[in-house]
């Protein structure tokens, strides 16, 4: 079977290669080999990038792992080795469990909604012929807004006194209390996060749709009467590589990149507001001065994300068809 051998060959390529090949839709050229006279020269060129990676990524990671085994004095006078106590504390705390539960829920809802709405808008925009570019620009422009600004705008819209959405909810007889009521705050967080992420998904889905060959769509037009069937059987499978890529990106976004939005929404608010695990790491570490506990939490998070990524690639990617 030629197909099997092709598949094995393909699975040896890294994801990055495949994404690149899929985006450029060209056969990858073998890289040009450049010979340097001095053996140190290539390392010199690599140094700036390596320095950035080491200083901002590896070093903090190692620091986090080390300090997760210590109990640190709040004023930084000393640290005591406590073994896995920090981990045990985090995992046994009911507050940690409820935050983890909310994070999972939040991730699921934000990913599903922003992927779904992004796809819906892309499919609709793909059909627009007149004024298509201004329509697309309007949809994409939200992407240019920085997350804290998005959070701020969201906060104004949901504001208890001047927020138009609070007024709207009141019009329907609902007392929306963002920052006070747990689930009202959750609604606000989800709405702002989804709103911020839709344009990103929209851009990718739209370009994915436009790379579906016109004649394949026309063939489907002859083969199937129902537009929904054509979408489900032909367009969607051909969008699968895009969708998979976006799924990975969106879960990462919901887990980590929503931090500024959460910060703006729940900061200085009283009461019990929903937060994600990443925000809890920040709260415990920098507000609670529990460096050890917060480090342990971030290590747990690292492990979870790694496991999630492996899972995604092992089980989901198999179902994805790369042209």
């Amino acid at each position, binding site marked *: 079977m*030629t*197909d099997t051998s092709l598949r094995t060959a393909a699975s040896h390529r890294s994801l990055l290669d495949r994404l690149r090949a899929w985006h450029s839709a060209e056969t990858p050229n073998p890289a040009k080999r450049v010979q340097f006279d001095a053996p140190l020269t290539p390392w010199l060129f690599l140094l700036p990038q390596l320095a950035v990676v080491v200083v901002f990524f590896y070093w903090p990671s190692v620091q986090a792992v080390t300090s997760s085994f210590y109990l640190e004095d709040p004023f930084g006078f000393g640290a005591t080795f406590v073994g896995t106590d920090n981990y045990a504390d985090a995992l046994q705390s009911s507050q940690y469990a409820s935050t983890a539960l909310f994070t999972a829920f939040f991730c699921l809802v934000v990913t599903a909604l922003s992927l779904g709405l992004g796809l819906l808008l892309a499919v609709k925009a793909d059909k627009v012929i007149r004024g298509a570019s201004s329509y697309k620009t309007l949809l994409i422009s939200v992407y240019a807004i920085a997350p804290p600004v998005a959070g701020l705008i969201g906060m104004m819209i949901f504001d208890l006194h001047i927020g138009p959405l609070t007024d709207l909810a009141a019009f329907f007889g609902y007392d929306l209390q963002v920052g006070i009521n747990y689930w009202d705050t959750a609604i606000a967080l989800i709405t702002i996060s989804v709103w911020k992420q839709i344009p990103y998904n929209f851009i990718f889905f739209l370009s994915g749709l436009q790379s579906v060959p016109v*004649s*394949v769509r*026309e063939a489907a037009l*002859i083969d*199937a009467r129902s537009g929904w*069937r054509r979408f489900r059987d032909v367009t969607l499978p*051909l969008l699968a590589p895009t969708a998979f890529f976006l799924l990975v990106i969106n879960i990462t976004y919901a887990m980590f990149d929503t931090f500024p939005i959460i910060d703006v929404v729940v900061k200085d608010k009283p009461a019990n507001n929903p937060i994600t695990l990443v925000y809890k790491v920040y709260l415990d570490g920098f507000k609670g001065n529990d460096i050890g506990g917060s480090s342990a939490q971030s290590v747990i998070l690292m492990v979870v994300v790694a496991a999630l990524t492996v899972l995604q690639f092992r089980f989901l990617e198999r179902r994805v*068809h790369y042209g």
Partner: protein
Amino acid sequence: MANLTLKNVGKTYAGGAQAAVSGVNIDIADGEFIVLVGPSGCGKSTLLRMVAGLETISEGEIHIGDRLVNQLDPAERDIAMVFQNYALYPHMTVRDNMAYGLKNRGESKAVIAERVAEAARMLELGPYLDRKPRALSGGQRQRVAMGRAIVRQPAAFLFDEPLSNLDAKLRVSMRMEIRKLQKRLGTTSLYVTHDQLEAMTLADRLVVLNGGRIEQIGAPLDIYRRPASTFVASFIGAPAMSLLDAVVTDGAVMLDGHPLGPVGRAAGPVTLGLRAEDLRLAPAGVPMVVEHVEELGAQRIVHGSIGGQSLAVIDTGDQRVSGAVHVAIDPARLHLFDTATGRRLENAHQRQPEAVL
């Protein structure tokens, strides 16, 4: 299986100054193989896509069988289309590619399996049924595209330059296969090509299009022998018919001051059409200056000029040809066209050669 009728069909694109297709009338009998041929931009693909339902019909009526299909979706028109770039579904196996249309029409699994098996047998696709299109060669993909059309058992096949992406050798063999298959199935077919050789060899009747209008409809040989205009004359046949300015004086057509033969026309300028294969090099005749010679093995094409007007002559002799020669032609093989309109002028002295077969 059905006949196909196009009544005064026209297409104008929004914002387009000129009609892409206009006033097209074709009556296609059940089982007939019609080839639409013309240069790029002549509207042949637009016309085909209007029949398929992929383009809206601006004016006129299209009937498939006894149904008016103007307002019907492509899937409801009971047609099957073969695209230039195959348009296979890349994520489906060969089997699923062929079965997809039938599934959507609610055919039973047994019927689908039987039709797919039958098509696979006909097209020798059996070993490839579980492969994806990307694991197939160009010729095999073309067969799958054909198979997808066959299993539907449609009222009409529509072909949109299906052989253009294949190499020359494969094109010739696929051409014969398409013809055989169509004869066997007896399905009405509409085939678009810009390749006049493909058009000549496949068609029961040819439709030559120019600028969105029909120039001529007829059997390939009729069109070859009696082109209705200078456009058709220069498009059908290779090498192209040479078109030269000539005059009729005293009942004879004169080229560069030399008489070529009697014609039953009034005196005045005409456009003279000469097929390369009708001309021969002769000891006496009209003097021609040889410019260059294309050696084809079985024959050679001698390009030259008479009084500054270029023409081509097919020569089967084996002497070297160069410098000044003389060409002669049977007067019955002269084609005359109106200089102003380009339409064919009937020559009273011309007799119709009998068909060889």
